[in-house]
């Protein structure tokens, strides 16, 4: 029905342009939109898939090449490039090997969303959001007011557990930054004084662009600035940090049982994301110096 009207209106349009007979008053209503209709007929709409099939592995060997502080990853004879077309140049050999490992581990299909280190390197090199280091640090600090560690449960049992597990980390954090951050009751964020915020900002700004992006990625995985800094300072391991960020979930599943396809999957994802972020921070701040004992 609709098609017929559109087609007839096309005819009308041409009729009217030639002077038209004007007898079809109803059809004449189409005239105001005629130019649009003509335009529509001209556009060709191609079907487009937004979730294309993952690319299959097209390479055999993954190698790392380069020296003098810049390393590149090669897939057979192709250089690995970022989505914007820059060559992936990594300042640390260990990190380059880890990125290469991600490509080597791919057996059949290439799923970029699971290659966290590659993705992080792409982000730093391409800088798709045109961010400065300051912007990234600012984004990271926005998570501080709603830090996981600062929200406690009302129920007595879980509250005791949270206090037991989280308080030592919070204490360590307060001591490190000379602050007095307390867990906040209710829904509103914690009260963090400006001087403390600035101290933490300065701490984060002391890292380079690469490591700062690692911090943001870690904080986004755990929703906690405090745990991320604690892990970056080697106070706790990646496993412990991701466990602490999921404390309530762990408590509930230990009581009601866990479901492998949801809880375990989520656990492994958080752990993979966070350990990737941590690796990224540590590789990029790695300073290899060995002191020999004086003879």
């Amino acid at each position: 029905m609709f098609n017929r009207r559109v087609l007839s209106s096309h005819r009308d349009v041409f009729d009217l342009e030639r002077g038209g007979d004007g007898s079809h008053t109803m059809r004449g209503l189409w005239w105001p939109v005629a130019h649009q209709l003509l335009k529509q007929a001209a556009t060709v709409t191609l079907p487009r898939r937004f979730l294309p099939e993952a690319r299959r592995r097209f390479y055999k060997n993954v190698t790392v090449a380069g020296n003098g502080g810049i390393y590149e990853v090669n897939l057979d004879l192709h250089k690995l490039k970022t989505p914007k077309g820059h060559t992936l140049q990594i300042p640390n050999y260990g990190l380059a090997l880890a990125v290469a490992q991600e490509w080597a581990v791919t057996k059949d299909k290439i799923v970029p969303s699971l290659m966290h280190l590659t993705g992080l390197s792409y982000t730093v090199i391409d800088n798709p959001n045109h961010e400065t280091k300051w912007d990234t640090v600012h984004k990271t600090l926005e998570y501080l007011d709603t830090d996981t560690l600062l929200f406690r449960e009302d129920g007595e049992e879980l509250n005791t557990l949270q206090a037991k597990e989280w308080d030592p980390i919070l204490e360590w954090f307060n001591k490190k930054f000379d602050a007095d951050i307390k867990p906040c009751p209710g829904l509103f964020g914690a009260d963090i004084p400006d001087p403390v915020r600035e101290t933490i900002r300065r701490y984060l700004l002391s890292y380079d662009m690469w490591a700062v992006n690692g911090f943001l990625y870690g904080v986004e995985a755990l929703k906690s600035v405090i745990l991320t800094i604690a892990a970056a300072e080697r106070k706790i391991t990646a496993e412990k940090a991701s466990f602490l960020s999921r404390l309530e979930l762990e408590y509930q599943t230990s009581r009601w049982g866990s479901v492998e396809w949801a809880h375990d999957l989520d656990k492994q994802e958080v752990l993979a994301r966070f350990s990737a972020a941590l690796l990224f921070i540590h590789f990029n701040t790695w300073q290899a110096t060995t002191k020999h004992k004086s003879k």
Partner: protein
Amino acid sequence: MSTLFGKTQHIFSMLLHHFTDMAAVTPKIQTLRCLIREMRRSLLPHENVRHSPAFVYMMKEYRRNAVTDQQYCRQQEEMAYLAHTCATYLEASRRYQELHQEYHCRGERTVKETADIVGFKLPNEH
């Protein structure tokens, strides 16, 4: 109910105990073994792990940071931590992919498969 609750508490405390200071407790050689194991899984069938550059780099770092009479190593703990994180990353992403493959990669399941997942049995059909 109280015994059940006591049991879950026990399991939970065991879980917690498991996580306390894992990096300090896990021997470094065990982390190294874990790393090599994960690396071996990523290889193509005809390859040997000894020829992979990551393996060579790792062994070099481990040897370089070994405490000997000749050198004093400040970064040994830092490296142990890094190696541990690396092993964690490789293992977690492998486990994630395995779980994803198992539960979310296929299309719809048959009634029997669904029943098997939750541990039910279908009535015999005649």
